[in-house]
């Protein structure tokens, strides 16, 4: 929870400085971090892999890499979902994990009727949840934390009721084949996410809507005064978040054999962490889908190295929680926001 609270607290403190220069301009460590933020992230990834390889010589094998990348793929989609609302400005969506779970359960239960209906149903439910969140936050000016947390509770309960609380198994079909297939040793799920991220990142960089979401996040008031429609941007951002959560759910449904109705419920914090670590600002106006995806991969390697180091899953979660908060704090502090 703390990155969000931390963020809103720091945001109040870090108003623009008097001369309009970002704080890092006066702080050599911050200026250094700002200049080398891209290389720092790549370096972190290389270091993590090196540490993994040092702990277990077999870490660099194809099998290990796949076992890290496969769970990182749906997380990358979730981090992208989070990135849209974060870039739009000071928002965070706490319902992405539950939305992904609901989409996964729905995809599995529709899958006897065919893969395409299953995928469409999952996307539709994701978009609907996102639209409701967007209207709650944009039109009714609800606090995004409360609106999306309330949404989590509602969607979680409906998913539980619909699934009867039991695990379900995907019917054999196209979706199942896709989830278990590999191309040149790389799971198709991973390739699909990579492709989606590239297209989305391109779209976000060159489309008017992408630009609008980012500028509205940079200065909502300025955007409004200049004749922009910030509410429309909010709604689009939340709908995209819902859609990408659904994509994460579909990916999970495709390769997880027995699907629990809480499959992705705990993935919201890792998704936020992935986006922030990748360089999406919690204060809006900065970031891109590919950054969120890269952050999620980084996060996946971090998890696997911690487990390799001999931590139990519980210890691993504790260390990870502390690390995430620390990393988010340092990122925002060093980059001067």
């Amino acid at each position, binding site marked *: 929870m703390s990155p969000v609270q931390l963020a809103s607290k720091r945001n109040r403190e870090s108003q623009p400085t008097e001369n309009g220069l970002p704080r890092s301009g006066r702080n050599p460590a911050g200026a250094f971090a700002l200049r080398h933020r891209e290389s720092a992230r790549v370096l972190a990834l290389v270091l993590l892999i090196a540490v993994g390889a040092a702990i277990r010589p077999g870490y660099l094998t194809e099998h290990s890499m796949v076992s890290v990348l496969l769970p990182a793929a749906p997380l990358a989609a979730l981090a992208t979902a989070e990135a849209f609302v974060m870039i739009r400005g000071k928002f965070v969506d706490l319902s992405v994990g539950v939305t992904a779970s609901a989409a996964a359960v729905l995809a599995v239960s529709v899958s006897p009727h065919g893969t395409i209906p299953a995928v469409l149903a999952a996307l539709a439910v994701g978009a609907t949840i996102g639209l409701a969140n967007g209207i709650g936050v944009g039109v009714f000016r609800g606090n995004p934390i409360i609106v999306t947390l309330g949404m989590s509770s509602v969607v979680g309960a409906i998913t539980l009721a619909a699934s009867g609380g039991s695990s379900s198994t995907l019917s054999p079909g196209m979706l199942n084949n896709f989830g278990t297939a590999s191309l040149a040793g790389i799971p198709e799920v991973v390739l699909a996410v990579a492709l989606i991220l590239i297209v989305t990142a391109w779209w976000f960089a060159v489309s008017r809507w992408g630009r609008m979401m980012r500028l509205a996040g*940079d200065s909502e008031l300025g955007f409004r005064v200049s004749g922009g429609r910030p509410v429309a941007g909010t709604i689009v951002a939340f709908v995209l978040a819902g859609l990408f959560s659904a994509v994460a759910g579909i990916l999970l449904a495709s390769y997880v054999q027995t699907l629990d109705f809480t499959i992705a419920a705990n993935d919201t914090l890792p998704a936020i962490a992935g986006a922030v670590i990748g360089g999406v600002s919690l204060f809006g106006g900065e970031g891109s889908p590919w950054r969120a995806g890269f952050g999620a991969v980084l996060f996946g390697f971090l998890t696997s190295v911690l487990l390799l180091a001999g931590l139990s899953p519980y210890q691993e979660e504790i260390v990870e929680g502390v690390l995430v908060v620390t990393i988010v704090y340092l990122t925002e502090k060093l980059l001067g926001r």
Partner: protein
Amino acid sequence: MTGPVSPSDTALEPLVSGNALCKSFSGTEVLHSVTVAFCARQVHAICGENGAGKSTLLKIISGVHRPDSGSIVTQGRKHAGLTVHEARKHGIVAVLQDPTLIPTLSIAENFFLGSLPGRAIVRRREMTRSAQEALDRYGLPLDASELVAQLTLGKRRLLEIVRASEQHPRLVILDEPTASLSDSEVRMLAGVIGKLKQESAAIAYVSHRLREVLEFSDVITVLRDGTRVATEPAATLDENGLASLMIGSAVSRVTHRQESTRRRNDPRARGLTGRAIHLGASTAPFDLDLPVGEVIGFYGLVGSGRSSLARSLVGLGPLPGGEITLNGSAYRPTSPSHAARLGVMYCPEDRKGGGLFFRSSINENVSLITLRSYTNRADIISVRRERQAVIEVCRSVKLRPLNIDAKPSQLSGGNQQKVLLARYFAATPDVLILDEPTVGVDIGARRDIHEMIAAKGATGGAVVLISSDPEEVLDLCQHVYVFRDATVVAEFAGSRLTRDALTAAALVSPEGPPVP
């Protein structure tokens, strides 16, 4: 041009005085050898135009600034300068415009902040009783246990003054005390000031509202360009006399002002017109004509209603009353985006809070409004066309260096303002409202911006220039509306448009009806 004059026969000993105070900020002298004496039982008003040195003088007296030379004398001791803490110890308290009360606490709790009665447990009843006594003594009809949040802004101001008075000060400095007060609250303020005089305090009073200055004060000191030009008993002055002391004689100069290119008979060039516009229920209605092809000035002091009118015209506030038309059809915008689609845009004064996007590039800052014209049917931006257009408009506003990939935070204030204006100049609205476009920019940038505004006025739609700088308005505008107290108090054009006419109209009520 005499020293302090007492209204009574007895010669008064000043409680606090400043002798030959000088102060410069980064090489510019803002206060030149000003001497002023605040005597017991006297309300001493300090008058002057914006930038005359009033607030610098009072900040020196209350310890915020240290004078470069000169001294402050209090209780017979000479100080080369005071700190805020020392000033307070000598009984100098200032009630400034920024609110200092805590809204979530009661009146009584606010009174005793920092010195709550009782040791471990606050003696609430005692606290409330003594706060209530103070309220009653100063004639404020308030309940001490009430929360400050429930009070009007005016009552809060009065409360701050009473709280300051409770510290038995020698000198109370009141900065624009009537700024948010209703008529009945102004009468309460008169009571509070009377009580302070009874208790032998001196009062320094700063206000732009000359009528109230004359009503409340005993002595008036007038500052102009950092120099004291007069100290007179209030009884010897009237509104016009005071205003002419403040303005002095100034030469007006005209450079960019051009002949109107207005085409009177073309209904599509009529621009924006308003009949019987009023901003509030109790303000006087006025008419407004913003024809295409003219630069029109909205002149007035800060807070006189110019910006509120502009903001409400683009849907940033409630629509003003009256009948408004744009090029002949009814104009009722619901939001800035609606106003922009209809053809009216507003460029805000505050570059940092609502103007520029500091995490985005100059390119993205400038192309925001016109972005749609560089996209294809799939909503994809053509980078080449966008950059070409942005470079062109940035060149026309003389942005130097012409690096559109930089971020606005790397620019000087003048260049930041040029980037902001470039965004609006890239668009072609029928009515473009610019709010204080040259505040905080250097002289070179100011000249460039003036040229741009003149050019835009000659070729584009109507350009409205909101300014509190008479030189700027005289330089650029063909027609000027003068604002005071949320309404238009005068209109000037042609030969009637002079510096003295503008500043006098902004300060005092004009004799007779406004100039047609």
